[in-house]
């Protein structure tokens, strides 16, 4: 266990000053997620343009430093990606958080990979994995236009 790995500067910084913590004006996709065990909740908003590219992504909600930082980093790097690319990135991220040692997606720049790898510290904290993944599951739900609230237990 290593607290320093979990609470890296970049996580603390994003946790304290989350990017895109707002509601996108004119959003056309959104979904809600919550973690019933701890009461954390998130609402993800996406605005896709005519070419189905994410023009803007944002979120509202409250939670721990890990969940806020994760949603902050996610909404930042998903801008400019299309649905297919975004979903592949989600898969890649979830795989990395659970078991994979690194990120593989060709849609991620080296800089984006470095940022996301800052969240890899949660691997050692099984109870905290859901904090990092809630906003990602919720974004997929927004793409798929699911009306049910996402509930993340893992």
């Amino acid at each position, binding site marked *: 266990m290593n*607290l320093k790995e979990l*609470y890296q500067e970049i996580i*603390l910084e994003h946790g304290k000053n989350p990017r895109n913590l707002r509601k996108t004006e004119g959003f056309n996709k959104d979904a809600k997620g919550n973690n019933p*065990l701890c009461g954390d909740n998130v609402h993800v908003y996406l605005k896709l343009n005519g070419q189905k590219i994410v023009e803007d992504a944002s979120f509202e909600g409250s939670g721990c430093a*890990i969940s806020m930082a994760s949603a902050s980093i996610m909404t930042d790097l998903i801008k400019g990606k299309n649905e297919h690319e975004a979903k592949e990135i989600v898969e890649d991220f979830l795989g990395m958080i659970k078991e994979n040692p690194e990120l593989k997606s060709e849609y991620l720049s080296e800089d984006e990979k470095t940022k996301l790898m800052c969240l890899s510290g949660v691997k050692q*904290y099984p109870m*905290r994995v859901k904090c990092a993944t809630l906003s990602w599951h919720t974004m997929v739900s927004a793409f798929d236009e699911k009306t049910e609230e996402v509930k993340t237990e893992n």
Partner: protein
Amino acid sequence: MNIDQIKKEFPIFDEKIQNNDLVYLDSANSSQKPKVVVDRINEFYTKQFSNVGRSVHYLAVAATNLYENTRTSVQKYINAKDKNEIVFTKGATEALNLVANTLGQSYLQEGDEVLITELEHHSNYVPWHFLRKSKNIKINFAEINDEGEITLEEIEKKITPKTKLISITHLSNVTGAILPVKEITQLAHSKGIIVVVDGCQGAPHLRLDMQDLDCDFYAISCHKMYGPTGLGVLYGKKKWLEELPPYQGGGGMINEVKKDRISYGELPNKYEAGTMATAQVIAFDQSIKFLESIGIENVMKHEADLVNYGQELLQKNNSVKLVGNPKNKGGVLSFTIEGVHPHDIATILDEDGVAIRAGHHCCQILHDKLNIPASARASVGIYNTREDLDQLNESINNCKKIFNL
């Protein structure tokens, strides 16, 4: 009273938890178990096991006697009038569900009002919500004051001519407030209102005297009382338990079963359908003996000292804010740190071997009222020391350091 000696009776404190000595501050969630309780479960399964109340062979009779001995011990411990007022359940949650379900079947009518409080654990709200759905009863909430207390005056204010039942916690698992249950019961009874008490936090930490409290029902969680999991106790006044219908149907709770009619067994069998948590019940006798050997007055004195000490420490700690400040308070210290989410607090404290709970503690209504999504909670038991609270404070300081506060 020698706390170091008492602590030695709990084998878990011999363990290293992630290379740390365990500082266990999560007893409001569940207490640790003394060796006598653990050993009793082992001994029963190893040397004495049989199902109870069914067969006539030697082991069955002996096991039945042991099982019933615990019932008598509980009766004496809580000063109930009659042994048959003690019903074993799978937990306090089931005890409260039993009360709500059976009162819903045969006592509460559409339009009746149930008064609970904003302090209630979900297990003393959701069962009444079921009746709100199925029987159209109304649920009213007594509100907390600024200190996180529920006063007798507030209860009185919320009673209406339609109030049929008041269901309240004895001791809040978040603010630590101890409710004036005896006075509330007197008031309620003067108006013909039934009183149900969620005693989960009360039972391990307060002196229990059912005849003095005079409430109609009292729910106990055994695993918070240095006892095994999977076991609760429902105390109910005999007149109620006799009058109300059974809760679950099955073996053990019947008198006679025919194709066209069924009659039910006498108390307490009527409410103990199926094979019960036999080993747990038998081991729970040791929990009671353990508490009796220390003496509840000593438990209360020790825990009051701990909570006063901890409260002073945390009040002096910048950016730590205590949740509630009741005058009459049990061993619970809930707090928030400005700028650090409770889950982050709990993870960082855990690294030092300090086990606390973070979240809404099954009290979402209360956290909504306080306008906080969650809180961190340190709660004490008989094995805790002032040093544990010093460590808590030190780990909180480490947490502040990590978050650059």
